[in-house]
C-alpha cells in the first residue's frame, strides 16, 4: 500500500505524520501526532467544501462512534483533512480475517450491539451511514466504534471524484441502492450482513465478481443453516429484499438479537445502548401478560429472559422463532417514538447532473463493467476466450452453410468451385472472428484511446487480408468469377494498379481488409460490456462498409462481413440486463464503494 506522505511530513499545520493507517472511504488515513502530543487519525480528502450545515455531523458524540474533531483545509493544496479519533486497535475486518470461522455467539452479539448502538445514534440524528462494513468498525481498548460516517454527505460536494474512483466492495450493499434509495433500511441490511459474518466468518452473498455479488443480493435468499438458531429471525428480517419488510428501526432489530454475556466477550465493553432499547426492554419485562394468548407463559418468559443483557449463551432457548413471535405483540403496545426524518438526500451522480453543478463526466455502467472485467485473472480470460473461439467456429460454420445455400448454389459454379468458395468463406469468418475476439478480450477492460485501437486493428486487418488472399490462392479461387451486376468489383480488378492484372494483389487485400477492420469498431462487439447481445444494425453497417471498400467480390464479401459481425456477437456473451442495471447503480453511487 503506497501513501502520499511518510513519517515526519507535516502536510497539515500542527500535525506530524507518523505512518499511513489505510485507505478508507474517500482517501488515505494517517496516524499523526499534534505538536503537543495528541494522537489523531488524519483522513486526507480532495478538496471538500463542507459548509456549516453539513458539518453538524462533527458534533455527534457517542461512545460507539469514532469521534470527529474537525475538518481543516490546507491552503493552496486543494486538500482537506478530517481530524478524528485514533483507534489504536484493529478493525473488525482484521479480526474477522483472524477468525475465518466467525466469533463466539457472545462476542458476535457484543460487536453487533455496539455497532447497532452507534448506527442508531446516527439515525436518531437524521443521518444514514450508507457504508457500514467491517473495515469501518474499530476496537480500541475494548470500545467498539463505527467510523467513516457522514463523510459521503460532506464529500459528495467535491467535484473531483468521478472516473478516478475505484469501485470497492458491494458486499454490504442493500438491493434497493440500485434504485437510488438510501433510507436507513440500507444500514439495517448492512447490519444483517455484518451479524451474519460475525457468526459465520463469511458473508451470505459472495462471489467472484461484483456483478455476481450484486445479483445474489437481489435474487438469492441467505443460507442461515450455519447460523445459531437464536440469531436467525433477526438476520432473516434484516436481509429482506424489500426495505419495507425489514426492521424499521435499529432498536427493533436489537430487541430480537440475543444480548451477549459480557463476561464471555474477551474484553469487549458494553455499548452506550439507545434509551429506546432499554425502555422497550423494560416494558417487555414488566408486561409479560400482554403476550398473545396463544403463546404459553413459559415461552413468554423465555423470550424476556433472552433480552436480558446478562443471559449467557448456555441458557438461550434454541427454539427462538417461537420466542420472538411471542414478543411481537408486546412491542406493539409500547409507545414507539416516531422516526426522525431522514434529511440525507441521495447524492447520486444523477442528482448532481440535474442540479447543474456536476460537470465532470460521470461513470457509466460500462466503466464499472470494465473495472469488473479487469479483475478477471489470466486463466479465467483464457478460458472465456477459448469458449468464445469455439462458439465462433460453430457460428461461422452455420453462417457459411447459409451463404452456401442461399447464394453460392445460385451462381454458375461447378461443385468443386462451390466447395472451394465455402472453405474460403468459412476460413475467412473463423480467422476474422478469432482476431476480433482476441483483441476484444485484451481490450475488454481498457478504455484507451480509440485511435490506437484503430491503428492496431488496421495492422490486424492487413494481416487477415493477406491470409485471406493466401488461402484463396491456395484454393485456386477465381476472384473475378462471382459478383453481382451492380458490383464495381470487376472495374476494381481491371483498373486499379493495386490489382495485378485481373487478379487482386496482396497489397490490395492488406490495405482494404485493414481499412475494413479499422473503420468499424469491431472490438465493441467482442466485449461482455455492450448494450445488447445482438446488434443487427451494426452488422448491417459493417456490411455496408465492406460494400464500399472493394475488398473482394461483391456482394459475397459484404455478406461475409455482416455475418462475421453476427458470429462475433454470438460468440461473446454479454452482461445480462440485471447485471447491467447493477453496474449502473454502482456507477451512480461510485462515491460509496471506496475501499
Amino acid at each position, binding site marked *: *500500500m503506497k501513501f502520499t506522505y*511518510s*513519517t*515526519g511530513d507535516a502536510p497539515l499545520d500542527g500535525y506530524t505524520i*507518523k*505512518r499511513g*493507517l489505510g485507505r478508507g472511504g474517500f482517501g488515505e488515513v494517517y496516524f499523526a501526532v499534534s505538536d503537543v502530543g495528541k*494522537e489523531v487519525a488524519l483522513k486526507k480528502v480532495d478538496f471538500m467544501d463542507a459548509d456549516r450545515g453539513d458539518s453538524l455531523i462533527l458534533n455527534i458524540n457517542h461512545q460507539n462512534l469514532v469521534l470527529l474533531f474537525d475538518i481543516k483545509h490546507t491552503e493552496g493544496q486543494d486538500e482537506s483533512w478530517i481530524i478524528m479519533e485514533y483507534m*489504536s486497535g484493529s478493525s473488525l475486518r482484521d479480526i474477522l*480475517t483472524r477468525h475465518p470461522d466467525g466469533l463466539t455467539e457472545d462476542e458476535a452479539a457484543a460487536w453487533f450491539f455496539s455497532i447497532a448502538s452507534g448506527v442508531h445514534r446516527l439515525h436518531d440524528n437524521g443521518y444514514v451511514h450508507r457504508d457500514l462494513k467491517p473495515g469501518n468498525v474499530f476496537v480500541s481498548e475494548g470500545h467498539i466504534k463505527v467510523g467513516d460516517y457522514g463523510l459521503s454527505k460532506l464529500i459528495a460536494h467535491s467535484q473531483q471524484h468521478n472516473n478516478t474512483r475505484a469501485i470497492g466492495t458491494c458486499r454490504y450493499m442493500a438491493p434497493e441502492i440500485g434504485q437510488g434509495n438510501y433510507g436507513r433500511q440500507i444500514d439495517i441490511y448492512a447490519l444483517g450482513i455484518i451479524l451474519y459474518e460475525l457468526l459465520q466468518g463469511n458473508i451470505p452473498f459472495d462471489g467472484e465478481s461484483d456483478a455476481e455479488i450484486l445479483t445474489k443480493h437481489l435474487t438469492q435468499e441467505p443460507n442461515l443453516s450455519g447460523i445459531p438458531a437464536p440469531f436467525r429471525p433477526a438476520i432473516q428480517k434484516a436481509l429482506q429484499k424489500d426495505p419495507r419488510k425489514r426492521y424499521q428501526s435499529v432498536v427493533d432489530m436489537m430487541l430480537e438479537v440475543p444480548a451477549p454475556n459480557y463476561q464471555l466477550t474477551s474484553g469487549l465493553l458494553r455499548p452506550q445502548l439507545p434509551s429506546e432499547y432499554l425502555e422497550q426492554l423494560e416494558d417487555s419485562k414488566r408486561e409479560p401478560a400482554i403476550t398473545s394468548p396463544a403463546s404459553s407463559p413459559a415461552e413468554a418468559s423465555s423470550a424476556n429472559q433472552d433480552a436480558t443483557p446478562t443471559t449467557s449463551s448456555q441458557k438461550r432457548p434454541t427454539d427462538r422463532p417461537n420466542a420472538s413471535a411471542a414478543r411481537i405483540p408486546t412491542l406493539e403496545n409500547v409507545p414507539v417514538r416516531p422516526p426522525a426524518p431522514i434529511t440525507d438526500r441521495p447524492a447520486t451522480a444523477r442528482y448532481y447532473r440535474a442540479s447543474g453543478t456536476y460537470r465532470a463526466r460521470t461513470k457509466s455502467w460500462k466503466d464499472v463493467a470494465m473495472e469488473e472485467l479487469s479483475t478477471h485473472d489470466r486463466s479465467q480470460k483464457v478460458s472465456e476466450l477459448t469458449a468464445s473461439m469455439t462458439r465462433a467456429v460453430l457460428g461461422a460454420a452455420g453462417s457459411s452453410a447459409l451463404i452456401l445455400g442461399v447464394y453460392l448454389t445460385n451462381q454458375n459454379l461447378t461443385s468443386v468451385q462451390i466447395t472451394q468458395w465455402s472453405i474460403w468463406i468459412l476460413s475467412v469468418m473463423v480467422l476474422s472472428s478469432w482476431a476480433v475476439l482476441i483483441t476484444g478480450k485484451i481490450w475488454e477492460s481498457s478504455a484507451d484511446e480509440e485511435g490506437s485501437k484503430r491503428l492496431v486493428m488496421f495492422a490486424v486487418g492487413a494481416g487477415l487480408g493477406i491470409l485471406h488472399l493466401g488461402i484463396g490462392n491456395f484454393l485456386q479461387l477465381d476472384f473475378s468469377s462471382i459478383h453481382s451486376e451492380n458490383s464495381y468489383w470487376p472495374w476494381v480488378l481491371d483498373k486499379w494498379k493495386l490489382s495485378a492484372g485481373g487478379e487482386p494483389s496482396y497489397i490490395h487485400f492488406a490495405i482494404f481488409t485493414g481499412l475494413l477492420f479499422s473503420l468499424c469498431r469491431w472490438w465493441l462487439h467482442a466485449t461482455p460490456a455492450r448494450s445488447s447481445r445482438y446488434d443487427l444494425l451494426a452488422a448491417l453497417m459493417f456490411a455496408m462498409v465492406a460494400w464500399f471498400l472493394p475488398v473482394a467480390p461483391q456482394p459475397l464479401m459484404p455478406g461475409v462481413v455482416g455475418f462475421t459481425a453476427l458470429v462475433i456477437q454470438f460468440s461473446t456473451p454479454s452482461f445480462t440486463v440485471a447485471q447491467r442495471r447493477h453496474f449502473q447503480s454502482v456507477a451512480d453511487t461510485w462515491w460509496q464503494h471506496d475501499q
Partner: protein
Amino acid sequence: MNTTGIHRTRTNNFSTRVAATPPENSSVKHHYYFRTNKNIMKAVSERFLVWIDAVGGYLVCLNDQLLLGQARPNSQVDIPLVADVSSRHARIKREGEEGDYVIEPLAEVTVQNKEIQSPTLLHHGDMISLGSAQLRFTKPHPLSSSARLDLLGSSRTSPFADAVLLMSDTLIIGNNLANHVVYHGENHQVVLYRQDGQLLCRSDQQVNLDGVSGQTNGELFYGSQVKSDHISFSLEDV
C-alpha cells in the same frame, strides 16, 4: 557497557568513504553521492521507532539489557510505560548463544500469574504483569533470537507504539505468522539485520530505499524510508 557497538556515531567511517573514488557507473555514482550525503543523518543507536504503513508503529530496542519502568520526563528507562508502575520496574536481559530472555523483577512482577522474586526465564507466549501493565512476550521466529512485547489493556508505551521489538540479530517483516511483524498482504519479506555495528535491511523484492529504487540491500539510518508496492516503512529517532 555497549555490547552492540551500534550506537557510536558513524560520521568518521563515512568521511573515509567520501574520500574514495566514486565508481564509474553513473547510476551507482548517483547512489554513492546520495548515500554519502547521509553523513548528516545519524546512524541508529540503541532505540528507534519503525513506522510501517498500514501495519503499525514499533519501538525497536537493540540492547541486550532493557529497563522497563514508568514513562516520566527525562527517565532513563528503555521501555517507558504509561501505566501504574514503578520508575524502574523490571529488567529484561537477553542471554547466551540461544538468545534466551530473562526477566529480573525490581518491583512486583508476575509471569503467567505467578509472582516472581528472582530472574526468570521467559517462554514464547508468557503473560507478564508489571503493576497495572499487562504484557505478552513472544519469540515468534524459530531462527531469530529477537522477541516481541505486546501491551494489552489500557497501558501503552511512550512514545506510542503498537508493540516493542527486542531486536538481537534480525527482525523479519513479512506475511508469515512466524515473523516479528506480520502484515496481511502479498508475499514480500523485509529483514532488518545488524552487521559490524550497522543496521541494514534486506528485501526479497526490489524496494525504493531513501529515494533510490531497485534496491534489495542497504544501510538504514534515522529518517530512512523504504518503499515498495507492498510494504513501506520509515525509521524515526525516539
